[in-house]
């Protein structure tokens, strides 16, 4: 079946986005269209942190959608993002995950590019000299300028780097919108970042499910029983759900109350009330000034990244789709250059809650895998997201799926479905 035929099976049969058809997760034509309309057009996608490439010539290979790109710092210290495809034979020439280079060279025929992606050398461009004659080589009208690497538009803010294949994309600030920008700037307030390391996992589910997971405040107290067991989750915690005006990005903002095990832990479930951690350092939180109130803010920047602050643990979580039914999820944990060693220790200890082995994250990957299993076998069925009503609105409690409804409202417009 070609994509056109596949797309013909995709009709949105509901009045609103309080139901989501399974084909949104299973259809290959839809997925191809997502790459084209969302990842490669009109959106800023996450590529990394400036702190990952501190020196001139430093580069990091990463991904936007399914396309391999290189984030690199040039001699002048500016950050550029180029696509990892040689202009000659299309090879993904850069194989190292990171490194330092003076120029990029494709090993196949040694086409040679500047760090900004301009073609600077083509072997035997003028041919070879043989018996007093020059033979072969590129045509006279070959212009190196026209055969550079694809250069992406770059946006930097607060030490975070985004890029877009679409040079007509709106400014990064307009893309986020004022409300989301406020929470972005809260976490990336100009202090230099310090990379603590990476965790990577391949999750066999549709990439949107991870966005939905972080737009779903209903599940933490129910799926992540670790939170409840140790008195960390209360349904009556102060919390807010906010979106940009297009409903594509969102922030779940929560403030842990002073209550804890001694008060009513949760009105969801309160089993194993006697449980105590053998080592409470997992949860030894040091409040930081920049929090300005909330103890956790989880931001989804559509479509490519989740920005996490959960007490002292801060990270970016990069979504790298590889097919409609699978994505790689890359966590970059960081701190700030002015952190004390003790605070760094706290960030590292609390990181045990997150990532592919995390006490309250490992289960997210699992449920996404089994949701996808459900979808694949019953393509004309649908999920239900009616919690908190069928409207899309800012909300001041956790028992709502409004952010998911919002994302699909936006998604439908981008996809024309």
């Amino acid at each position, binding site marked *: 079946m070609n994509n056109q035929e596949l797309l013909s099976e995709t009709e949105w049969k509901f009045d609103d986005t309080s139901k989501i058809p399974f084909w949104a997760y299973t259809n290959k034509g839809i997925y191809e269209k997502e790459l084209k309309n969302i990842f490669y057009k009109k959106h800023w996608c996450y590529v990394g942190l400036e702190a990952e490439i501190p020196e001139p010539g430093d580069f990091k290979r990463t991904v936007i959608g399914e396309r391999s790109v290189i984030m690199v710092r040039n001699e002048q210290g500016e950050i550029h993002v180029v696509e990892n495809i040689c202009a000659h034979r299309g090879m993904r020439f850069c194989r190292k995950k990171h490194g330092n280079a003076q*120029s990029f060279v494709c090993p196949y025929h040694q086409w*040679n590019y500047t760090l900004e992606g301009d073609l600077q*050398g*083509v*072997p*035997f461009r003028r041919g*070879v000299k043989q018996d007093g004659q020059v033979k072969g080589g590129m045509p006279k009208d070959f212009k190196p300028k026209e055969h550079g690497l694809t250069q992406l538009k770059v946006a930097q803010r607060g030490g975070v780097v985004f890029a877009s294949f679409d040079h007509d994309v709106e400014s990064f600030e307009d893309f986020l919108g004022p409300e989301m920008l406020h929470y972005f700037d809260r976490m990336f307030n100009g202090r230099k970042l310090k990379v603590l390391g990476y965790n990577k996992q391949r999750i066999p589910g549709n990439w949107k499910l991870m966005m939905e997971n972080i737009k779903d405040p209903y599940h933490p107290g129910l799926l992540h029983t670790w939170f409840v067991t140790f008195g960390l989750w209360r349904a009556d915690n102060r919390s807010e759900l906010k979106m940009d005006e297009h409903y594509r990005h969102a922030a779940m903002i929560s403030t842990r109350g002073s209550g804890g095990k001694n008060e009513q832990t949760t009105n969801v479930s309160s089993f194993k009330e006697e449980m105590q951690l053998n080592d409470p350092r997992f949860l030894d939180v040091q409040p930081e000034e920049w929090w300005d109130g909330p103890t956790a803010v989880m931001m989804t920047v559509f479509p490519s990244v989740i920005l996490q602050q959960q007490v002292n643990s801060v990270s970016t979580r990069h979504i790298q789709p590889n097919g409609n039914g699978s994505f790689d999820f890359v966590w970059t944990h960081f701190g700030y250059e002015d952190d004390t060693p003790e605070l760094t220790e706290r960030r590292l200890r609390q990181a045990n809650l997150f990532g592919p082995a995390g006490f309250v994250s490992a289960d997210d990957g699992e449920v996404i895998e089994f949701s996808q299993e459900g979808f694949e076998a019953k393509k004309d069925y649908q999920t239900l997201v009616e919690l908190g009503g069928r409207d899309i609105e800012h909300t001041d409690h956790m028992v709502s799926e409004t952010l998911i409804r919002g994302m699909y409202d936006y998604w439908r417009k981008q996809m024309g479905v």
Partner: protein
Amino acid sequence: MSNSWIPVANQEDLIEDDVIGINVNGHPVALYLIDGEVFATDNVCTHGQALLSDGFVEDGEIECPLHQGKFCIKSGKAMCAPLTEDIKTYETSLDGEKILVRFE
């Protein structure tokens, strides 16, 4: 061959505005004839491992065939990326038909 003038070729071997590669006691040298004047440089490019004598002479510069880096033939100066290192030049002189190159 230290600090000595060594005969390396005959004038008739050279072509105006072009370059030839020769081997002097195992050392690859490029010889140029520009406006009737003879110049000599190392023949192996300071960037990749290509021979400049396979390259192209234009406006007093030699362009490496591999990555199109250009050196000033007279001074050996690297003129553009991807070159980062100048190329060594040698003094030349004529003894009748013979071309001499001075090695230090």
